[in-house]
């Protein structure tokens, strides 16, 4: 039970974005996907869920992903996009949750199970009050939570979160990420999340993968990977790692830019 990629490549408009990545994430783990702007983090996710063509090999629990039909991938993957601008439609949150489960199903009626799961998900994420609201009536952060609900309601084996908390306030950040990491462990799935806040990565990710210009810079347990050395090399920023609450958490504090303009840092 895991996610693995071998020689995973994506080329967009003739430009190689991901240049052969070998990554392995164990089930039940949350992996932070880090890297400077343009490193290929979002592309990594889009290639897995079929939004951009990807090559090489990638599998979830031994089932190959690349080259399979959208329906096959959709059964395995839940994806929360960074850009939710499109999620502005004349449907209530509850209807969207039903729609997310219907997918390409031929059946015309919604199943009782789907209706039950929609209600269950609203409760899990504390979104009951939005059940009848349309996304257009909600704030950016609320829409982000709805988008997460749409990904989770389909019981994915691989959950891809592209900056899942970028629009959330402090309390909601913790609440949503607590829910996600608990869900990941409980259902033994793999969660990949792109963060720009190193403290969230440090707190929630079991593993960390740092991308630098389309290749793996480092990958491993967050404790040994999310270090000031790696951050300096990947982001070109001098950081300190601080112990909080007697080592219960590690906080990352950025001090200064080492190499202005050069995001490739030590390379």
């Amino acid at each position, binding site marked *: 039970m895991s996610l693995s990629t071998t020689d995973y490549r994506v080329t967009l408009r003739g430009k190689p974005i991901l240049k052969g990545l070998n990554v392995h994430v164990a089930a039940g783990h949350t992996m932070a996907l880090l890297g400077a702007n343009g490193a290929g983090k979002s592309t990594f996710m889009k290639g897995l*869920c*079929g*939004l951009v063509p990807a090559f090489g090999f990638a599998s979830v629990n031994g089932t190959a992903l690349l080259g399979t*039909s*959208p*329906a096959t*991938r*959709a*059964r395995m*993957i*839940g*994806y929360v*996009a960074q850009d939710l601008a*499109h*999620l502005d*439609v*004349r*449907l*209530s949150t*509850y*209807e*969207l949750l*039903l*729609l*997310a489960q*219907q*997918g*390409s*199903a*031929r059946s*015309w009626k919604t199943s009782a199970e789907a*209706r*039950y799961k*929609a*209600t269950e998900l*609203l409760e899990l994420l504390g979104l*009951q009050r939005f*059940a*009848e609201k349309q996304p*257009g009536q909600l704030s950016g952060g609320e829409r982000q939570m709805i988008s997460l609900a749409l990904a989770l309601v*389909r019981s994915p084996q691989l959950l891809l979160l592209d900056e899942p908390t970028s629009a959330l306030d402090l309390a909601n950040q913790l609440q949503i990420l607590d829910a996600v990491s608990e869900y990941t462990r409980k259902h033994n799935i793999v969660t990949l999340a792109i963060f720009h806040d190193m403290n969230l990565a440090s707190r929630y990710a079991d593993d960390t993968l740092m991308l630098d210009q389309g290749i793996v810079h480092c990958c491993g347990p967050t404790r040994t990977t999310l270090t000031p050395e790696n951050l300096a090399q990947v982001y070109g920023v001098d950081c300190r790692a601080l112990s909080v609450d007697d080592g219960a958490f590690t906080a990352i504090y950025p001090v200064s830019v080492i190499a202005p303009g050069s995001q490739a840092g030590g390379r």
Partner: protein
Amino acid sequence: MTIPGVIVSPSPQARYANTVWRRSALLTLLLVLALAAFIADLIVGSGTLTAGEALSGLLSPNSVDSSTRVILLELRMPMTLMAVLAGTCLSLAGLMMQSVLDNPLAEPFTLGISSAAGFGASLALAFNVSLSHALPELGADLVVTANAFLFSFVSVGVILLLTRGHMGLQAITLLGIAVHFVFSSLLGLVQYVANTDQLQSIVFWLMGSLLHATWNKVTLCAVIAAIAIPVVLVQAWALTALRSFGEQAVVFGIPVRRLRTTMLVLAALLAGAVTSVVGVIGFVGLVAPHVARLLVGEDQRFTIGVTIACGIIFVTLASLASKLIVPGAVLPIGMVTSLIGLPFFIILILRDRRLTSR
């Protein structure tokens, strides 16, 4: 919305069931209205036949004389059925175009179908040049229609060929505009070189008229509608996903590209068939889908049906009005549709908070 003191608020499930019930009721109501409009259009004519005579002729054809029967079955019935089919096909094609191109301004003719069909028809009308001459013998009444239909398909075929591989929505829309201008220039050219009589028949054709309807043409459109509607209905959930998530519907298991191509081809077939028979009837294809969305939202299981019902109601009422406005004459349907539909549409827009705020 919980009211203090009320303890039991219905669950989302119960409220959803209620919503579904309300939408089904509304759809049924609109279909009944469409049927009523159909019957009204059939019994009201521009000629001397009274409504009572027409009604009794329809209920028991043997009780009326043969001329009444001919008027009813050979003149009125094809026209009215054509109005129903025009409403059905154009509104459905409009809904598909708006969904597929993700553009609220899209309509059946966005990809240049109207000018392509117009050009095809004008070639046949002015010079008796028709692509259909390559086909086995067609009835004389079908030559103009067939040419218009084939040319409308040429326009969409060209666009699909050019955009294959990289189906950017903007690219498709812009190419549609380009194709539209190519064919309208060519149409202008035909009009320029045509003589007065030919020019008149071209202009009359372009205005859109149900008077061209015959049983053959009705059958053509009915067959295409009968093929397209089930295909679209089966894809109702997929289309809802496309409306809600756009490109990202892929993540929910929707083969977005294939769905888009299928729907574009169907929309072209529907719009091309109707346009080649009755000429250009604007407005319906643009507006019926919007009205449907305002009434039942984006759940395409209901939007599709309500769009079609609205389309039928619009066109049959317009047909009715076109016979009544000037007694003894039948105005071109294309003009009347917009005139009677617009005020209604404007009221709907102004009453919708979602559209008028921000």
